[in-house]
């Protein structure tokens, strides 16, 4: 019974969160009733500026935040399952630093659009990690994590070079981007991110039960008739495609993909068959709430990555102490 309430709550949760967030923003010109009147059919709001603020600034931002939070959580859960490591999230693969380097490159050189460059280098970073970890046709958990660390190191170094080269104004926007920021969210960014995000989500949703099999181990998965290597590559590609597309427009939202999958496990258990959807709904809604804080707590915007890091870091340490995971083997 208790469990049923929780499930209902998860499915209903996004609606009040998304709707309520339309009321929150920096502009004092938008009144409470304006949000309602814009949503009522046939009611044309007089002031086009208010209309723009609600429909073209707040709404795309809220949706972008929702899908970013959702896909980071779903990817985190999927990566944890395939690496059999509860301490893994999209950053371990070097995906974030690869994307950060790509975006910085785009910002300074105009050689490629920022989002596209972040996306490409996110994929390159994951490919590099995978390539380095591959030995005798197999990729072990430990070697992939080590390769991710190396990849992170490489792209952090490259990013530093870009930062040194760039002028102070651009440097500021790189720094802003690195810490995760939805300040410049609009419909263009939303449409840019949404297709890869949805494509990745669909693949991960279809493979959701197989995550359970993979989470038991390669040998167990192989002996029961799956091809673990091929499946893992699919899942890795889907998670990378979707999360790098999100990171390209939102920046690095540190440790978020680690925290939410654990919250979902604590609430609903480990079964990935359900967890994929719950991660999307809870991860999306919760990041919208954090974003509301980041844009309303001070007179200026605080990068959202600051909050997720401050929440995620003690959580990570608590997890590390509690589970003893990562020390054995």
């Amino acid at each position, binding site marked *: 019974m208790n469990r049923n309430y929780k499930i209902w709550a998860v499915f209903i949760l996004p609606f009040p969160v998304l709707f309520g967030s339309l009321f929150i923003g920096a502009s004092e010109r938008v009144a409470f009733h304006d949000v309602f009147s814009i949503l009522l059919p046939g009611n044309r709001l007089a002031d086009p500026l208010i209309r723009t603020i609600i429909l073209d600034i707040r709404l795309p931002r809220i949706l972008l935040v929702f899908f970013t939070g959702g896909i980071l959580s779903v990817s985190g859960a999927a990566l944890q*399952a395939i690496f*059999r*490591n*509860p301490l893994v999230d999209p950053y371990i693969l070097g995906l974030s630093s690869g994307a950060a380097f790509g975006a910085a490159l785009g910002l300074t050189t105009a050689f490629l659009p920022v989002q596209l460059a972040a996306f490409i280098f996110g994929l390159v970073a994951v490919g590099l990690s995978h390539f380095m970890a591959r030995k005798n046709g197999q990729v072990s958990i430990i070697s992939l994590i080590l390769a991710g660390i190396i990849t992170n190191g490489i792209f952090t170094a490259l990013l530093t070079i870009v930062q040194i080269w760039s002028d102070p104004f651009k440097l500021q926007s790189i720094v802003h981007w690195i810490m995760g920021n939805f300040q410049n969210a609009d419909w263009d960014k939303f449409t840019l991110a949404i297709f890869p995000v949805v494509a990745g989500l669909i693949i991960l949703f*279809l*493979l*959701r*039960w*197989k995550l*359970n*099999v993979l*989470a*038991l*181990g390669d*040998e*167990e*998965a*192989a*002996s*029961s*008739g*799956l*091809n673990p290597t091929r499946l893992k590559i699919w899942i890795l590609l889907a998670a990378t495609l979707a999360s790098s597309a999100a990171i390209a427009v939102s920046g690095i939202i540190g440790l978020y993909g680690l925290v939410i999958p654990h919250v979902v*496990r604590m609430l609903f*258990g*480990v*079964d990935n*068959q359900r967890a994929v959807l719950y991660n999307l709904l809870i991860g999306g809604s919760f990041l919208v709430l954090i974003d509301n804080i980041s844009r309303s707590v001070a007179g200026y915007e605080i990068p959202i990555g600051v909050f997720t890091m401050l929440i995620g870091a003690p959580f990570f340490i608590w997890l590390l102490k509690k589970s003893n*995971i990562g020390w054995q*083997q």
Partner: protein
Amino acid sequence: MAAVEKIIEVKNLDFSWKDQPVLSDISFELIAGSFTVMMGRNGSGKSTLMRIMGGLLPYDKGWLKVNGKELNHLKARERARYIGFMAQKHQGVFPFSVQEVVLTGRAAHVVYKPSVSDQGIALEALHLTGIAHLKDRIYTELSGGEQQLVMIARVLAQEPGIILLDEPISHLDYNNQIRILKLCKQLVKRGLTVLAVIHDPNMAFSFGDQFLFVLNRKVHSLTLDEATENGILNEIFENNLNQVSIDGRPFFINRIADKV
């Protein structure tokens, strides 16, 4: 002698690991509906052979036929319907429930997610192994013996005709060892073919129908008497065993007392 069905046939099979021969020119057969025990020293290649038979390692030369079909040519899904393999030690990471773990054995039968009938089969496997009462417990919190039974139930849920168990009793207390070996006999009675690696000669010879001895990269398919006669048993146990007969049944006692 009645015609027996050879469910597994191995002929002139070679396997090397990094240019190091592990098994060379091995040939043996497994009889359908038998409980075969595999014995041999640590590192002699028993686990390697199990993995080859389970389709997890490709062999270099020779052939291995399962139900008359060449194993290397079978797709993973198809192979999993013939052969189930349980590795020596399984380290669980995530706190899955017992039922969720056993259900993963259905992978070869599932497209996207397990059906109600898959869940029924998983539950049946839990009943067969006598651990249905554990179904909602957390796998990683169970004792070693219980975890071993869960993994056996997982293989059973796969519904293969042949089950390979790599050291299913090595880490268990005496009662759990008996329990698992009795279960093996029970499965054989139901028509399954079971191959298990067992180190304890008393357990091996009181439960096994057929025996494989792995020694010096070779596999010998022998009866107990044959193995005693040609000295293979003594070689494997390095003359540390005394064989005695009680009520016509063979028993093994170590010779430590003679030497100390």
